């Protein structure tokens, strides 16, 4: 053994810190560019040199977003759709993932794979027949229509992700609980889910941000302003060959914050939950 484990750990910690700093820079610099652009005047945006710090920072672009588009309405719609589709897809995916991961029934593998096969037609093409179907079902131009449409994308993804996590929960705990008289549903709710809390946060975040940021369906399926989301509001700033970069970036910066803040809050809650509950070895 070359080094003692504690020294090894220290080395890895140091390397880790270095890597973390690099990664933080790599993540933040493009985001900073977005923020900086959103704070610049049009003239500075079109300036020859890319100024790293806005010369005369202005909130005019943010004002434009609120003035030219009903941003708060869009925000409300986005939120409603994101929350709705997240809750639905989480419930459906938890049940399905548990079934595939733990239960035994004929056709299990086929059904599990079948879920993933639905991704083999990309949404960039699927939107056409999907819209035709939604139209016939009169689900277009509505919040619940979009929620339902997003389920088609979220459920397979969330199911598979959760399945991966459920499989790492040791089986013994569940067996012990069932010997004590717990049924399957109880085992799911009382053992598996709490032990997969970090995983649930990740999957929830995935569903939420997918609905929050989704562009194509939201754009094609909705017509009236009442049903439009934040992302579809962006197209107001893109005309044929001129993009209004300032308001575009402003809108993006604003819409990136809620999911991240949400995650921050959930993370604290999850970590607290884990340390309180503890994991029985």
């Amino acid at each position: 053994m070359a080094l003692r484990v504690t020294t090894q750990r220290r080395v890895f910690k140091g390397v880790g810190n270095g890597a973390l700093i690099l990664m933080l820079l790599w993540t933040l610099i493009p985001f900073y560019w977005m923020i900086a652009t959103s704070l610049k005047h049009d003239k500075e945006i079109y300036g020859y040199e890319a100024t790293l710090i806005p010369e005369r920072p202005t909130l005019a672009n943010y004002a434009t977003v609120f003035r030219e588009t009903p941003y708060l309405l869009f925000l409300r719609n986005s939120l409603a759709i994101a929350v709705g589709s997240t809750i639905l897809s989480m419930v459906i995916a938890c049940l399905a993932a548990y079934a595939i991961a733990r239960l035994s029934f004929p056709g299990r593998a086929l059904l599990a794979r079948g879920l993933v096969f639905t991704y083999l037609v990309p949404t960039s093409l699927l939107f056409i027949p999907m819209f035709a179907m939604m139209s016939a079902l009169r689900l277009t131009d509505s919040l619940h229509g979009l929620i339902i449409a997003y389920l088609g994308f979220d459920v397979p993804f969330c199911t598979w992700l959760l399945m991966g996590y459920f499989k790492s929960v040791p089986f013994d705990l569940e067996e012990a609980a069932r010997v004590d008289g717990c049924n399957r549903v109880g085992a799911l709710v009382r053992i598996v889910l709490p032990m997969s809390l970090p995983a649930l946060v990740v999957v929830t975040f995935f569903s939420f941000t997918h609905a929050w940021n989704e562009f194509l369906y939201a754009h094609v399926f909705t017509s009236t302003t009442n049903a439009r989301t934040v992302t579809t509001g962006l197209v107001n700033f893109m005309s044929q060959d001129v993009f209004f970069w300032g308001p575009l970036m402003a809108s993006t910066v604003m819409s990136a914050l809620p999911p991240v803040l949400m995650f921050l809050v959930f993370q604290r809650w999850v970590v607290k939950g884990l340390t309180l509950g503890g994991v029985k070895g």
Partner: protein
Amino acid sequence: MATTTTVSLPLPTTSRRGMRGGPILRRVTQDRILGYLFLFPALLVIVGLVAYPFASAIVMTFQAKTAGAPGRFIGLDNYRELFGSEQFLRAVINTVAYTGIGVGLKFVFGLSMALVLNQERFCNNLFRSILLIPWAIPTVMSALNWRWIFDDASGLINNVLVRLNLIDETISWLSDPHLAMLSVIIVVVWQGTPFFTMSFLAGLQAIPKELYEAAEIDGASVLQQFSYITLPRLQPIFITAVMLSAILTSAGIQFVLILTNGGPSDRTMIFPVLAYHLALGGAQRLGMGAAVSLIFFPLLVVFIVFLTRRMLREKGE
């Protein structure tokens, strides 16, 4: 990896309302019914929602079809035309490279960051949330933002490099045929790494510390702990994340569409972008667009089946 126990438990002491059959049979039938019941909502979503458009797309590949008109059946003509097209074949190679390198890099960066974030550290939560930011931005806007960053004259990268006197001439990130694909992959990796990071981190957080402590007492080095405890536990998550990411990355059009539109000279043309161009540009041949999208279908099915074989094995095999 925790081994699964076989189904041979004693009879539960509390009996439920008159079930027929012995304890094991009862268990198995219960499992079966419960399995279908739990899976039912997911199936309802897929069959009720995706099945029709999916079938529609498949049927379209055998038709000469434009929007708003019923398609005319032409058999394999679309496929024949594609296989004879140099542009298509190039797109296939590009897609494989783009997906392979993209997912590979995302995996490596994601795993590294997950391990790093799993270490004890002050403000870890804040760092996790910061690293999440690319995931919270719509791909359209990321692509547009990076387009700017890569710009020749007004781009952030070129401006900084020139100012630091590191280069004399600006680097054409998006128009240099040797750099274009790399530039697109950079953006894909920027956008997609947080998914891997968070997924792996969640997996790591579920591994009880006691396992590591026990191994350490037994004298295992950090690397050995990683290989024997961490990796096996994370394996299902690795498989799932790679599979889902590979499928979705290979189907994503926004980055290429906005950054290079397939150029320069088709160097970054990947097949979903080709499908999009065929279906929405020019003659708007939906049948051809669908054919391009689905040509990988058999290959991907094999890929999925192979990758998930171990994961979906019945217990006790």
